């Protein structure tokens, strides 16, 4: 019962102080909104870029064209061997017949090409398609394929397709996303730090206004948490308000962007995916924002009140 009374009083005093310090709180909340909005944007952008890269990566594969003389056993051996390589996700076989029907399907509208191919029998080589796990590290696959006994199986005229041109572009994208992620993390850290400083300041001003009261409370035997609690409640409230505001802002940005741009993507930024991701993960993102806001608020108020609550230790 005593604990309940105390808990209730801490909450009540915290809410009361929040209302009293409303204008002081605006600054703290505003900077927290900025912080949390950046956090949110970083998360959504990160997910979107990862998705884009994953999509492009899926399209990267290596095709090894085989000589017509390669036996079934040689081909199976080669495929089994490839499967043991650490960077190989999947190996599939495209037979001559498959290649032909694929070619026919691809060129269904081009009668002369179709005709040319039916006159010469089936000139298309069979191939083995390799899907790498990590497209930036296909070097080991390449060197395996270049080993003489493997090279001997390959059609010298067709060469090996590495989707090389695409790979260079993908490397650039990956690099850019890496930098974006780092910039995101750094700016989140900087703004989190600034918002903590401003909350410190807000709480310290509130403490300064009430320092006589705090001294008296201390002398009358109030515990540390009885005095500190209301300040923590107050700043946790900043965090909650800021989290809700940042979610609302980002939501509004997506709604406006979707209707104003009339496009599903801006260069690399796939807005449709980002929007979708945001709404699918809404509750988790909201939870995360609340958690970050509450954490920043609680942490900074605990630190801000520390030195006012210390007992004299000097002798």
């Amino acid at each position: 019962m005593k604990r309940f009374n105390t808990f209730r009083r801490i909450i009540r005093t915290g809410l009361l102080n929040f209302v009293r310090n409303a204008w002081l709180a605006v600054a703290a909340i505003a900077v927290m909104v900025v912080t949390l909005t950046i956090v949110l944007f970083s998360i959504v952008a990160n997910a979107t870029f990862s998705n884009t890269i994953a999509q492009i990566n899926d399209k990267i594969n290596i095709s090894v064209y085989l000589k017509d003389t390669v036996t079934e056993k040689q081909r199976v051996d080669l495929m089994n061997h490839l499967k043991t390589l650490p960077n190989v996700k999947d190996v599939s076989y495209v037979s001559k017949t498959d290649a032909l029907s694929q070619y026919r399907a691809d060129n269904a509208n081009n009668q002369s090409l179709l005709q040319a191919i039916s006159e010469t029998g089936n000139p298309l080589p069979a191939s083995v398609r390799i899907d790498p796990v990590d497209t930036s590290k296909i070097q080991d696959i390449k060197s395996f394929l270049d080993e003489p006994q493997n090279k001997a199986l390959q059609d010298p005229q067709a060469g090996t397709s590495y989707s090389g041109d695409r790979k260079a572009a993908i490397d650039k994208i990956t690099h850019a996303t890496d930098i974006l992620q780092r910039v995101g993390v750094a700016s989140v850290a900087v703004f989190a730090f600034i918002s903590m400083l401003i909350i410190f300041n807000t709480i310290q001003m509130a403490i300064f206004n009430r320092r006589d009261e705090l001294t008296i409370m201390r002398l009358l035997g109030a515990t540390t948490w009885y005095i500190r609690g209301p300040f923590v409640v107050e700043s946790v409230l900043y965090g909650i308000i800021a989290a809700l505001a940042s979610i609302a802002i980002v939501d509004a940005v997506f709604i406006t962007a979707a209707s104003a741009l009339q496009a599903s993507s801006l260069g690399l930024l796939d807005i449709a995916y980002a929007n979708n991701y945001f709404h699918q993960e809404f509750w988790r993102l909201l939870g995360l924002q609340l958690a970050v806001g509450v954490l920043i608020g609680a942490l900074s108020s605990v630190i801000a009140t520390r030195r006012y609550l210390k007992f004299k230790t000097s002798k």
Partner: protein
Amino acid sequence: MILLDRVTKVYNRKSTALDRISLHVEPKEFVIVVGQSGSGKTTLLRLLTREEKPTSGKIVIGGVDYDKLKDKDIPLLRRKIGVVFQDFKLLPNKNVFENVAFALEIVGMGNREIRHTVPRVLDIVNLKGKEKNMPFELSGGERQRVAIARAIVRQPKILIADEPTGNLDPKHAWDVIRVLEKINHYGTTVLLTTHNQEIVNRLKRRVITIEGGRVASDRANASYGNL
């Protein structure tokens, strides 16, 4: 109830506030501490409430050895000691009732019990009917009695009053002293510091005189004349 053994407090090298003070106060005693300004009286009281730590020496109050007292237990200690401060230390934006209730809120008492307890204590200090007044609307003596009400509302075993009559005219000063005697009569150990010669002479209690941070005399039934 209160035991000090060779307690010394040095603020800096030049000034020694207390110099090897030894005291023993029995439960339910009424002790007056006299001494000029700067003699070390207030330092003594601040050591008892653990606002200060002694430079050396031992303090034991109500069985609590201050050397072994952890920071987190200081609030619990202070709840057992009622203190009336020289400058009252009332909360200016709370009325009389709220100021007294404040001491009970801190220890987690329920609102109903607070509403029941506070008027009884205000009655003891003769402040019935002033519940709604703000501190600035009260006279010095009334404020002092609010401070006393706040100090005794938790029924402490020890009441420390630091010059509670310092700013009062004789009539109000006696009102305050009567309240302290009443509380002592109910079983609380009272430690009172004062400058007021007349009060010392008429109370006829144990008087401890402090001079230059030392106990100059410690007599029962003392009066100012035979210090």
